[in-house]
């Protein structure tokens, strides 16, 4: 099972900030540290989730894996081969291995193309198949695979004639055209009706089983991440702060940020849905140009103590069972949490004991 297919080591992407003339003269350079030295390993056949708020660098990570952006620093290894910087034929080979499903199915397909054009494009670019006829046979097969049938009806349609779910199926079909090993799915269901989300995810999982795919599932939605992924990495301001088996990360959350994220999830359960939640976090996400010293989460952390900003940034350490966390106080917080739960529980009991007598 755990045969690594994609290994990222200190992967970094810094974007230069546009400067005006005085800044150029003074020699000031500021950078947006979109992805800041992250390391992870994705195993063959697994679904690896990347979660975090908007602007935390998860999409940038996806694009680095896709080689849509140049890697600033660090290394990327694909199937044991270095894939940090690729050119020409090597890049072409890499592109056939790694494909991407984009967030917005409304703009990820050229509005002028028919579904046939969309699906033929990868084959044409990589010169797969002898002629258009042979390519079309393959296109029909894939359409069947993503349950867009009858193919004849869908082949001639333009994207605007498809529903959101159908579009995402077509987009998925496009990624499958070149039989890749890894598919980066950047929020594939966030713009789709809730009713069809499960269907799409189910289809993706089925495809994964049939074709032995590996997914990198990028999302801000913890509930689908829990449902869909095998392993999960939580990102905050360009850094992975917690990583592990999905169940473990969600159920036995260690990092205060992850806790806040989970607390923020809406639960459509009566009695809970209308309650304004007391999310255990303060302030706003800082700008990625000016990352706080020490632990980058400390200005928003309710448990931050002096050492959190005085000392070096905590490293992502394995605390056992493949669960990694980058917080130096996780154990203390765990204890505090347990204590709070107990006190809350006792408070709850008291309340309930009050109720009938009143």
């Amino acid at each position: 099972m755990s045969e690594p297919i994609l290994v990222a080591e200190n992967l970094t992407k810094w974007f230069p900030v546009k400067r005006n003339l005085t800044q150029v003269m003074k020699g000031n350079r500021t950078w947006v540290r979109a992805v800041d030295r992250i390391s992870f390993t994705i195993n063959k056949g697994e679904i690896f989730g990347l979660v975090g708020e908007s602007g935390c660098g998860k999409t940038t990570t996806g694009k680095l894996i896709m080689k849509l952006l140049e890697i600033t620093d660090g290394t990327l290894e694909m199937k044991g081969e270095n894939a940090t910087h690729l050119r020409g034929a090597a890049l072409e080979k890499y592109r056939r291995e790694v494909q991407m499903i984009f967030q917005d199915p409304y703009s990820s397909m050229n509005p002028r193309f028919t579904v046939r054009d969309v699906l033929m494009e990868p084959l044409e670019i990589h010169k797969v198949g002898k002629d258009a006829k042979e390519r079309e046979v393959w296109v029909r097969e894939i359409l069947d695979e993503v349950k867009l049938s009858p193919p004849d009806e869908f082949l001639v349609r333009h994207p605007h004639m498809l529903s959101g779910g159908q579009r995402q199926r077509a987009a998925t079909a496009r990624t499958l055209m070149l039989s890749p090993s890894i598919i980066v799915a950047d929020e594939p269901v966030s713009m789709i009706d809730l009713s069809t989300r499960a269907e799409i995810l189910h289809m993706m999982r089925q495809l994964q089983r049939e074709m032995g795919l590996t997914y990198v599932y990028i999302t801000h939605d913890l509930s689908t991440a829990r449902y869909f992924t095998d392993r999960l990495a939580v990102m905050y301001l360009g850094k992975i702060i917690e990583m592990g088996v999905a169940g473990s990360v969600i159920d036995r959350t260690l990092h205060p940020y992850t806790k806040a994220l989970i607390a923020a999830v809406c639960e459509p359960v009566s009695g809970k849905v209308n309650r304004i939640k007391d999310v255990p976090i303060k302030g706003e996400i800082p700008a990625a140009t000016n990352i706080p010293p020490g632990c980058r989460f400390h200005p928003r952390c309710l448990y931050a103590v002096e050492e959190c900003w005085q000392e070096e940034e905590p490293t992502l350490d394995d605390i056992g069972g493949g669960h990694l966390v980058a917080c130096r106080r996780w154990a203390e917080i765990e204890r505090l949490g347990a204590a709070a739960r107990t006190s809350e529980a006792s408070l709850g009991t008291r309340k309930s004991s009050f109720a009938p007598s009143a």
Partner: protein
Amino acid sequence: MKKRDFSQLRSMWSEFRRIKFGMVGLALLGMFVVVVLIEPLIVPFPDAATRWRDMTYWVDNPRNAKPAWVNWFTSKDYAPSARIQSDNIVSGEFGAGKLYQAELPYKYSWDKAPSDVTLRMNVTGNARYEAEFIRPDGLSVTYQKTSQGAGTRDLRISVAQNLQPQLYQFAGKYEDPRVMQSTSASTINPLAVLFSQAEKGALLSGSKPLDGTYTVRVKVVAADATSSLNEAELIVAGGVQGVLGTDNMKRDLWSGLIAGTKWALIIGLLTSFIAVVVGVIYGVTSGYYGGFVDSLMNRIYEIFSSVPLLPILIVMSAVFKPSIWIMIAMMCIFFWVGPVRTVRSIALQIKEASYIEAARGLGASNRRILMRHMIPQLVPYAFASMALSVPGAIVYEASISLIGLGDATRVTWGQILQAAFSSGAVLQGIWWWVVPPGVAIALMGMTFAFIGFAMDTILNPKLKTR
């Protein structure tokens, strides 16, 4: 790939057929093309295109004649132009030489006399000739002259120019003496006298027209054996002529307008096509690559867009011989900036779309992204832009003609309009000289606008009304 493109065109055509104004535009374009193709068949002066400024080519035409169909709307009809060829020249011995005789009948049944009647004789050598204009009422006027010279040439006897004394004398036989005293041979209208009843008032052109068959009897005495009369022809320059009348240089405007169609199509299509293709590719490239390339291309664009075209064209015309091809080339060099700004901004917008990123992720080359994803989206805009710059190019050519820098060897609508304006056609009420070329330019513009908008509707699926 080729085959598929073809089928794409076919499906485009089947959609195009459903758009009414598109079909109107196409019909108009087809009409223009047909007009260009059958040009020699529908114009009375097929050499109009090459001999537009050759005065001798137009010499037999009336000046400022109205279009022939004006007669349908007026109570007093103008005599239309006509040509009567003698099919029978009788020759006989006459001393040392020969006597040639011919009769040319002209049937007259209008209210307003023609502007001139000219007898053209093609003679060789020395000849003494006599032309007798016999009216339907039996009265006649005679003109005699001797022409000496070698070789074959045309002799012309114009009633308006040569028969003034004879007709003044003729009128004197029945006209009021007081009227005769107040006028002279050079102030009368000889044509009005010739085609009026022989009664008082004819000199002041107040008398009734004399309808019937007029005959011109020609007698030519050839002095020696080498001399002869080869041809005799009566040319009636009417008050109305042809489809669109004539201008003040006696040129047939219908022939000119048709000859101009070809040049309008060539100037408009060639200039706008080259300019828009260059502009679109330039704009897309600039927008797509961005960064340093974009900045550099923008500076070049700004240089071209801020250089005024007219002074450059004046200098170029001074350096080169004014030619329509150089003019088209110059217009292309400066017209391509037209669509650049818009295309660049559209390209900036398109390149951010995630399907461009998706294509890059699939490994598409920049060329492929530009050609397959970006430029096709700009086709509707390019067509609209072309449609807009077609009349622009035609009008520009006209303005260059206006300042005398046009290609004097071609007939263009602009040149016709320019001649009309410079000779005050509007003030003189010669509407048939101004309106047709103007309407033609507008019609040509409309043609391309219609086709452009129809293409827009097809190529932009979101605009489709399903």
